[in-house]
């Protein structure tokens, strides 16, 4: 009995020793921080300028080949607010928030969901995705979906594969008739994005979850106060 206990403890000791050696052999974290990119994309949606025309959704669908029945972006309409004839609707953009601490990236078992170090975009590596849908369940903004054609988790990637690779702005930004969407580099103080962020009060969704999203909203100011 004592003998078997001793052998079990020995085994445990061996495992612990092996694990500690393994962690020492890991590359130190500082190595990856060396090349800090000068690029970090973000977006502002000005809910005062948005008229809810859905041009952004249509453009996104066309450019990124998003099948019917699913969408990477949609404009949620709430209201009407106020008394007739002074009534208005409110519009809120519902799409990937490109979180700095993305829950989808954290839970993905294969690393198919990842943050592009170059641009800060939360992207999907289609080859690696097995379709466990853990990311879809983990996203607190519920914007991920399974693309019925590729059978892979899909979502907004700021047109990383399409428009950005050709040096163009994301399709939704170009399509917006009222310029309610501003896209740009957070690290560039001269960018329209940073200027907008510094001149208008913005909010981000569900920040208390610690996700640090990069989709900013300018809140609607007309109409009644809603609690």
């Amino acid at each position: 009995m004592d003998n078997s206990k001793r052998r079990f403890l020995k085994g445990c000791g061996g495992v612990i020793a092996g694990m500690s050696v393994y962690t020492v052999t890991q590359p130190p974290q500082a190595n990856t921080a060396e090349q800090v990119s000068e690029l970090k994309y973000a977006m502002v949606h000005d809910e005062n300028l948005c008229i809810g025309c859905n041009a952004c959704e249509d453009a996104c669908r066309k450019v990124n080949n998003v099948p019917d029945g699913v969408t990477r972006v949609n404009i949620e309409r709430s209201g009407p607010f106020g008394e007739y004839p002074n009534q208005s609707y409110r519009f809120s953009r519902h799409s990937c928030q490109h979180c700095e601490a993305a829950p989808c990236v954290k839970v993905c078992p294969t690393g198919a969901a990842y943050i592009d170090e170059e641009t800060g975009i939360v992207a999907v590596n289609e080859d690696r995705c097995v379709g466990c849908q853990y990311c879809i369940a983990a996203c607190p903004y519920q914007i991920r979906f399974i693309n019925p054609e590729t059978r892979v988790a899909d979502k907004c990637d700021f047109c990383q594969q399409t428009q950005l690779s050709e040096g163009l702005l994301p399709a939704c930004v170009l399509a917006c008739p009222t310029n309610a969407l501003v896209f740009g580099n957070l690290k560039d103080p001269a960018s329209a994005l940073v200027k907008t962020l510094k001149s208008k009060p913005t909010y981000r969704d569900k920040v208390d979850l610690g996700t640090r999203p990069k989709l900013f909203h300018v809140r609607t100011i007309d109409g009644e106060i809603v609690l």
Partner: protein
Amino acid sequence: MSAFHFDGLVWHWPIAIYLFLAGLSAGAVFFAIMLKHFKLADKAYLSPFVQAAAVIAPIAVCAGLGILVIDLTKPLAFWKILVFYNTSSVMSMGVLVLLVYQVMLFAWLGSVFSTPIQQWLKQRLPLLSKLLAQLARHEDVITGVLVILSLSLGAYTGFLLSALIGFPLLNNPVLPLLFLISGLSSGAAATLLGGVLMRGNPNGVEVRFIHRIEIPMILVEIALLFTFFAGLILSGGQSQVAAMKAIGEGFWGWIFWAGVVGVGLTLPLAFNLWMKVSSDRKFAYVAVTASFSLIGVLLLRNFILYTGQMTAV
């Protein structure tokens, strides 16, 4: 809003069955080890209850994984989950635990049943004989590691869901403990049911041993369930909304009170206490009590999975 289809629902019942089977396998292994260690010693392989656990544990874990793979949107790509790992992902670490668990489970089965297998082999396949002898010699180490792995697997089924930060009912620190304890009790029930079906003595030493553990375990489970929902309600906000929506109304409210609390916990507890005072156990008593426990745990898994996804933050 229907009970099985609503906005925001991502994971359906196959995941609940997988969680149930993984916990059941872990529990069956845990109790088989306890039976051997505390009661049966070298005669363990002769006990129908240990034999039942030895059949149930590998089949349950393999069936659960099979369901999981079929439920992927790309089932044929499942091997990628075994090749690529992400240390921050509960699922990825769970895959690792499951892999090692299965290897150790078969090693343990080989070591515990080495005597009958050796007799059956009769000098055929000398390589296999040698391997079995090796396994039997290291049974203590294998057993120790397997106990840790089975507990890890039982808790993992809870951590998998509690990592989902967008759902207050799931993102709950009590959930892994609740799933661990209920998984163990489902394993005990499956071992008992399988054992008596394989003509084990319903009044034997194994049944008495497991029943003695089962009563405090049911009480702990009730306490955990109470803490789980009391904690949610006291947190206020969406946590409270989620808790009240789950246990306070509708289809899932009935499943919880009648199925999980009534059939799954209260009746088995009453039967166990009755069998303890009457000190006479018959086949029907043991089988019915075990079946009720199993139904209760299966309902609990479905209840938590569905109601958890009903309310987002």
